[in-house]
């Protein structure tokens, strides 16, 4: 499952597969997720939501609800105080806080079915439900629009009368649903197309899809009489929840303590707030703790998803297959408020390839859908679907092997990306070659079967992180992480600390701290935790080692330069001293005599994150009479730098591939003619189940460890969702005999294309 590059022999822990420190809690039911907290006197909160896709709120009458015995608080948008708003950095995007507040509780207008308009806290779930019915909201229903192309068309209902397209000069005089136009490019695109020997083009669409985490959003908020409050919640960032909640309720940060619960999946969807400010506003009104938990229907209606898109693409190439120019227009749904990841779509679209002439235009378009949230490599999978489909077209036209064509055009270190970064430490070509050499790529296909190949890119980020390493009195160590552990990061944190300290992994434990117990950290997102927080862990461990060496030198009365630290033991290299080696345990045991407790905390802003590249191969077949697709074999390869815990890295590749397969085949938001979501359930929002998938083989390419990380790690979590859309679609297109351009490739769509029936 690895490319054969063994980690350096000096590494004892990194690269092994120990059991995660929080494992037993997770398999015994002991782990506490967002909805598992219970406080004395706790009330049940519920949220009243819009039944309309688009409406003006004429009046909200909460008086009857407030009078209902057992109802302790009712809040509306008027209870929020976001003031001037401003932005808060949320990892891969900046969140406009006025919009986040208006998304938590509507102000003036509702922009989608399920938009929150009021909330109650009551002594029982039954009373809370009754109270919702007692809140009377008078709406003036407005025309709605849910399709991205329709939302851009002249005459479309305009959601925000103060939205004048940014990025256009002069500033438009009329409000529209286009929040922003992004333009990027280089070279002489028109000239390159004029000189092109081959041109391929197409129009592609993808449906809005949800992150689909199994744990619905949940929190408990408790306001204190002194104004200090505590929030327990499952999120991808306790500091982000604190910042957003404080801003929306106009409170000082230090008065809010956010305790991260275990998080039941996020995939980007838990990098914002929906419930926490509302729960705290309710708690502030009645002085009792309030629990708010979304139902699955609420999760679909009012959280996530990511953008549906429509895209036009043209590629120019030589007859040898060198891509000389590309032109692409991307239109992404933002949902109710500005902020689709279309800029990231533009940036990533051709990031795998060295294309001299590029012209990219992206439109960020609002419509009457829930505001999009980050979803694993936000913006990249849709763009890659179009690009990798077009490249597949090119390969077919030129009768070239799709991997050879990609190798020919692959970026190499030193190349400039369209967004200005220089490619460094990349192993894209090595990844393509690893796939080509894999038995899967050489395996014969059966009759009626086809194979699809596609690549994908993600930036991966670094950024602000904090971590502490505490040496325990018995010589073990505790790592304090600042990031919610969404997929096993406590294991990799503990492993990197153990490696650095020279301890066996069993002697290192890891915990995730609340906002008062560790320095600030950005969210768990952007594939940054193993890289950035890992760097903080290693630096803290290195500080501890330096301290241990100092203490050994002090004990031996020798120069610290003569103290070697290896495998958790200090050895005196000064031949004039007759000093017995001192183990960590020995040093920890007498720490009081050598300067007190041994611990270090590091806060840093990690630079040098390396991008990741993935290549996926998918074999499938189609029932020609029903159009149903069966995935037969799947292999995901990725440039991972160095895998700290290979099993969890493989898991990222497998999970991303599965989500991508769902995106390609069945997942979609289905709206009816009233702009209401028709499939807000797991029954009809069809995510892959165990019997839908084969084993997912992985190739971890460790050809280029990231030299900017102490153990060579690159982010791995997001890349794997980028290639599958086109890998699946390319295989289906091969069987159907025509380019399939619209996701999801549901049985009906495929059968129609096959002319079946």
């Amino acid at each position: 499952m690895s490319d054969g590059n063994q980690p350096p022999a000096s590494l004892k822990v990194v690269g092994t597969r120990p059991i995660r420190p929080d494992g037993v809690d997770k398999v015994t039911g002991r782990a506490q997720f967002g909805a598992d907290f219970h406080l004395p006197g706790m009330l049940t909160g519920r949220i009243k939501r819009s039944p309309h896709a688009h409406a003006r709120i004429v009046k909200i009458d909460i008086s009857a609800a407030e009078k209902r015995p057992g109802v302790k608080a009712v809040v509306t948008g008027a209870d929020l105080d976001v003031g001037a708003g401003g932005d808060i950095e949320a990892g891969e995007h900046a969140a406009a806080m006025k919009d986040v507040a208006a998304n938590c509780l509507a102000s003036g207008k509702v922009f989608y079915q399920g938009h929150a308009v009021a909330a109650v806290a009551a002594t029982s779930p039954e009373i809370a439900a009754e109270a919702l019915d007692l809140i009377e909201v008078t709406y003036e229903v407005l025309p709605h629009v849910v399709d991205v192309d329709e939302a851009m068309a002249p005459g479309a209902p305009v959601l925000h009368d103060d939205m004048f397209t940014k990025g256009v000069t002069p500033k438009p005089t009329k409000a529209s649903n286009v929040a922003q136009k992004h333009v990027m490019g280089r070279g002489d695109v028109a000239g390159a197309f004029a000189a092109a020997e081959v041109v391929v083009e197409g129009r592609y669409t993808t449906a809005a899809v949800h992150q689909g985490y199994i744990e619905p959003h949940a929190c408990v908020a408790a306001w204190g009489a002194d104004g200090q409050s505590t929030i327990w919640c499952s999120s991808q960032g306790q500091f982000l929840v604190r910042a957003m909640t404080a801003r929306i309720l106009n409170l000082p940060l230090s008065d809010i303590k956010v305790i991260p619960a275990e998080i039941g999946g996020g995939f980007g969807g838990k990098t914002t707030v929906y419930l926490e400010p509302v729960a705290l506003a309710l708690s502030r009104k009645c002085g009792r703790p309030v629990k708010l938990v979304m139902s699955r229907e609420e999760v679909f209606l009012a959280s996530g998803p990511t953008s549906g898109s429509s895209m036009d693409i043209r590629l120019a190439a030589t007859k040898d297959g060198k891509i000389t120019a590309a032109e692409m227009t991307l239109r992404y749904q933002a949902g109710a408020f500005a902020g689709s990841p279309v800029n990231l779509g533009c940036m990533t679209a051709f990031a795998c390839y060295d294309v001299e002439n590029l012209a990219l235009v992206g439109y960020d378009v609002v419509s009457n859908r829930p505001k999009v949230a980050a979803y694993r490599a936000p913006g990249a999978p849709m763009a890659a679907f179009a690009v990798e489909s077009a490249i597949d077209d090119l390969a077919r036209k030129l009768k070239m092997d799709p991997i050879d064509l990609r190798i020919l055009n692959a970026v190499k270190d030193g190349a400039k990306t369209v967004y200005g970064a220089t490619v460094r430490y990349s192993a894209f070509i090595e990844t393509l070659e690893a796939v080509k050499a894999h038995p899967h790529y050489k395996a014969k296909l059966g009759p009626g079967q086809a194979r699809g190949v596609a690549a994908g890119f993600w930036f991966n980020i670094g950024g602000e992180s904090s971590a502490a390493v505490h040496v325990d009195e018995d010589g073990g160590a505790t790592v304090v992480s600042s990031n919610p552990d969404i997929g096993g990061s406590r294991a990799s944190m503990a492993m990197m600390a153990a490696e650095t300290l020279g301890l066996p992994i069993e002697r290192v434990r890891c915990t995730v701290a609340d906002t008062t117990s560790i320095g600030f950290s950005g969210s768990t997102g952007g594939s940054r935790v193993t890289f950035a927080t890992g760097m903080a862990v290693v630096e803290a461990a290195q500080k501890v080692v330096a301290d241990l060496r100092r203490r050994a030198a002090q004990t031996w009365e020798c120069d610290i330069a003569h103290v070697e630290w290896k495998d958790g033991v200090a050895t005196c290299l000064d031949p004039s001293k007759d000093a017995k080696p001192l183990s960590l345990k020995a040093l920890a045991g007498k720490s009081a005599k050598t300067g007190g407790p041994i611990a270090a905390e590091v806060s840093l802003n990690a630079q040098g994150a390396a991008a990741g590249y993935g290549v996926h191969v998918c074999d499938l077949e189609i029932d020609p009479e029903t159009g149903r697709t069966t995935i037969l074999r799947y292999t995901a390869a990725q440039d991972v730098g160095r895998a700290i815990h290979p099993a969890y890295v493989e898991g990222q590749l497998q999970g991303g591939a599965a989500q991508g397969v769902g995106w390609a085949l069945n997942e979609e938001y289905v709206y009816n003619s009233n702009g209401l979501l028709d499939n807000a359930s797991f029954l009809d929002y069809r995510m892959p189940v165990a019997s839908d998938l084969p084993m997912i083989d992985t190739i971890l390419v460790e050809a280029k460890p990231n030299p900017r990380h102490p153990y060579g790690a690159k982010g791995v979590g997001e890349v794997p969702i980028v290639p599958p859309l086109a890998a699946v679609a390319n295989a289906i297109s091969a069987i159907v005999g025509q380019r399939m351009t619209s996701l999801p490739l549901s049985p009906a769509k495929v059968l129609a294309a096959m002319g079946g029936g």
Partner: protein
Amino acid sequence: MSRTVVNAVVNGEPVEFLAGGGQSLLDALRDELRLTGSKEGCGTGDCGACSVIVDGRLVCACLMLAPEAEGKRIETIEGLADNGHLHPLQHQFLEHAALQCGFCTPGLLMASKALLDRNPDPTETEVRYWLAGNICRCTGYDKVVRAVMDAAADLRQEGKSK
């Protein structure tokens, strides 16, 4: 709202709790008995995160009324380990890294236990179809299926050595 007293055996222990007529077994387990290991992912029987075993049958606790539990034997994730000793399924899930966020894990483990109680030597296809009601969004199921197959082998071995 009238509530009735329900007597059941949960993880081998007799329990008594009050249940509303429309309350789900899941809510009773979580809110009355504070057994929060069973999770609610959907409340409509579509995700399996609340899987428990009732009188030997695997069910979604969200699709059973709490008063129906009267006189029943209920097994939840909290009872899977035996006096602190992990069940082979729990052990193999950890060994294989068959969980990432861990939210669906209790349900997957209970569903897998119900499978292995019936079929000690399932094929990969049997495992996949049996577990189709347990959605996992993190793992892509690969490691989950391997863990269940290996736990089955462990249990067969254990059976032989007994």
